[in-house]
């Protein structure tokens, strides 16, 4: 029962994502990145972590790219350096979040 509810929520989530075509995963797909790039050949990775993201995205380059963002570079911090889980902000199948804003007044525009 619980599982079926969970799946229903997931599928609804995916369906919405596909319809609206605005989430990170949709942009990945539009650029030709297959689902398997994040979720594995057999869809064995249900919640990909930073180890998947860094196969394509270099954290050091991201830090450099956003070094002038004010009031703080979003890709590095005294707490997590450049190793904070990417999907905490860059949620792929729902609206992105500004994770830092839980504790800080950083008005980051997250995609």
């Amino acid at each position, binding site marked *: 029962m619980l599982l079926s509810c969970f799946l229903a929520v997931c599928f609804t989530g995916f369906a919405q994502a596909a319809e609206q075509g605005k989430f990170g995963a949709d942009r990945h797909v539009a650029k030709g990145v297959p689902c398997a790039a994040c979720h594995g050949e057999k869809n064995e990775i249900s919640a990909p972590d930073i180890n998947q993201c860094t196969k394509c995205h270099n954290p050091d380059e991201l830090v450099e790219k956003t070094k002038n963002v004010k009031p703080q570079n979003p890709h590095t911090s005294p707490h*997590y350096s450049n190793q*904070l*889980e990417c999907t*905490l902000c860059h949620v792929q199948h729902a609206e992105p979040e500004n994770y830092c804003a839980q*504790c*800080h007044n950083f008005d980051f525009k997250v995609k």
Partner: protein
Amino acid sequence: MENTSRRSFIKGSMAGAVAVASGSFASAAVAQQPKTWDETVDVIVIGSGFAGLAAAIEAKKAGANVVVLEKMPTAGGNSIINGGILTATGCPQQKMHKIQDSKELLEKDILVAGNYMNDPKKVRQMVDRVLSNYEWTVNELGVEYLPDAIGQEGGHSVPRYVTTKIGSGAGIVNKELEKCKEFGIPVRTRTYVDRIIRTPEGVQGVEVFEGYRFPKAGSGKPKSIKANKGVVLCYGGFSADVPYRTIQDPKLNATLDTTNQPGATSELWRETSNIGCMQAQNDWIQCGPWGNPHEKGMGIGWQFNQTAAAEYGLWTNSAGKRFVNELANRKVRADAIMVEQANGRKCFAIADANGIKPFVAQRPGMLDKQIERKLVMKYDTIDDMAKAQGIDPEQLKKTIAEFNGYVKSKNDPVLGRYINNEQLPVETAPFYIGELQPKVHHSMGGLITDDQCRVLDVKTDKPIKGLYAAGEATGHVHGAVRLGSVAILDCLVFGRMAGENCAKS
């Protein structure tokens, strides 16, 4: 007639007292354990802050198979956003600055600030390890501290804290996490502990939700984990939990911000109450007096307010008068600010070009960032500063002149402020100012443990088998008021002890 019944009541209650002392009453609440366990380990550590990770490292070194459970999506709890200052009496930095200190003086400072509501045995256990703890972080974890900076938080008789190079508790936590990785200790994030399973024999394990999405209650998949040796509770404080903290202290309502991360909530305080753990002093909750109202949370403004202004400048209200000893303990200072605010006055932290020097040396670039974010303002004259900030200029100049007299005589006869050896008169432009706002910071009370970090039963005062605790989740170490820079000491010393004792049980 009345006398007779009163006498028999007294007799009855004395008999009751004797019965409790002899342990003939049953111990507190017990729960159904799961029919089968999904996983079995030796030691379960709940919480991944300073204490939890220290417990896990020592439990592993003692030969146990350990897992660390963390409900948030990131490891490190509140410790990873902590200010990174550690009491280190006897450290090389103190010697470099020729500061006379001793374990006995540290012990006395802790007890005085704690209103002697601390358990003196706990305080002694902690201060006995003050230098070995510092050395453990350097030698075993590889923590890097500023090599020549020694700081002084309020309530300490002398400067005695060292600061991590990165200026955050992350400088210690990330080293602990590296050690866990090296030792093969899993630190499982998004794992919410829903129940601690206690039977008449002791604590057996926990029921969790894996894949938990904070703060969504009931999210994730249920799982049970058995602990052959025991469970170590390092679940931290509840400063971010408005309903619970308001029950403990109704004035700490939602109008006050907190320095804590959003996961600093009460569910395991409630669960340990529920399974019959002894708790005390939960309503002694500390506000950090040095917070800045123009940013969220702990932020960065506090570093100017404390490290520059409280240690090498002064604090005044908008009437231009000093209102508290800038180096009094945190409760005295936070209460004093709240009184000023209740009377319609703002409170400010002020330092001059000389006063900021030690802070700028400790944290290069930080002052610029504070100015850029308008947390600290810079002015050419005291008059300009006073007018811009709505402070009475004549009174402020008078107050600063009086304070400079105390600096020269090395004695503050009015508020008893410690005058640092390196303090200069406040007279050199530019002048810097930040506003002060107390924010809910630390839970002093909590679980009561014995000298082996075993949690006591609420009905028998005896240790509960298989249940250990350390860090902010526990009480009696700090009593009424925790001194700044002693939290990390508390967490690491008792975290290590709890982990080792649990593994060897």
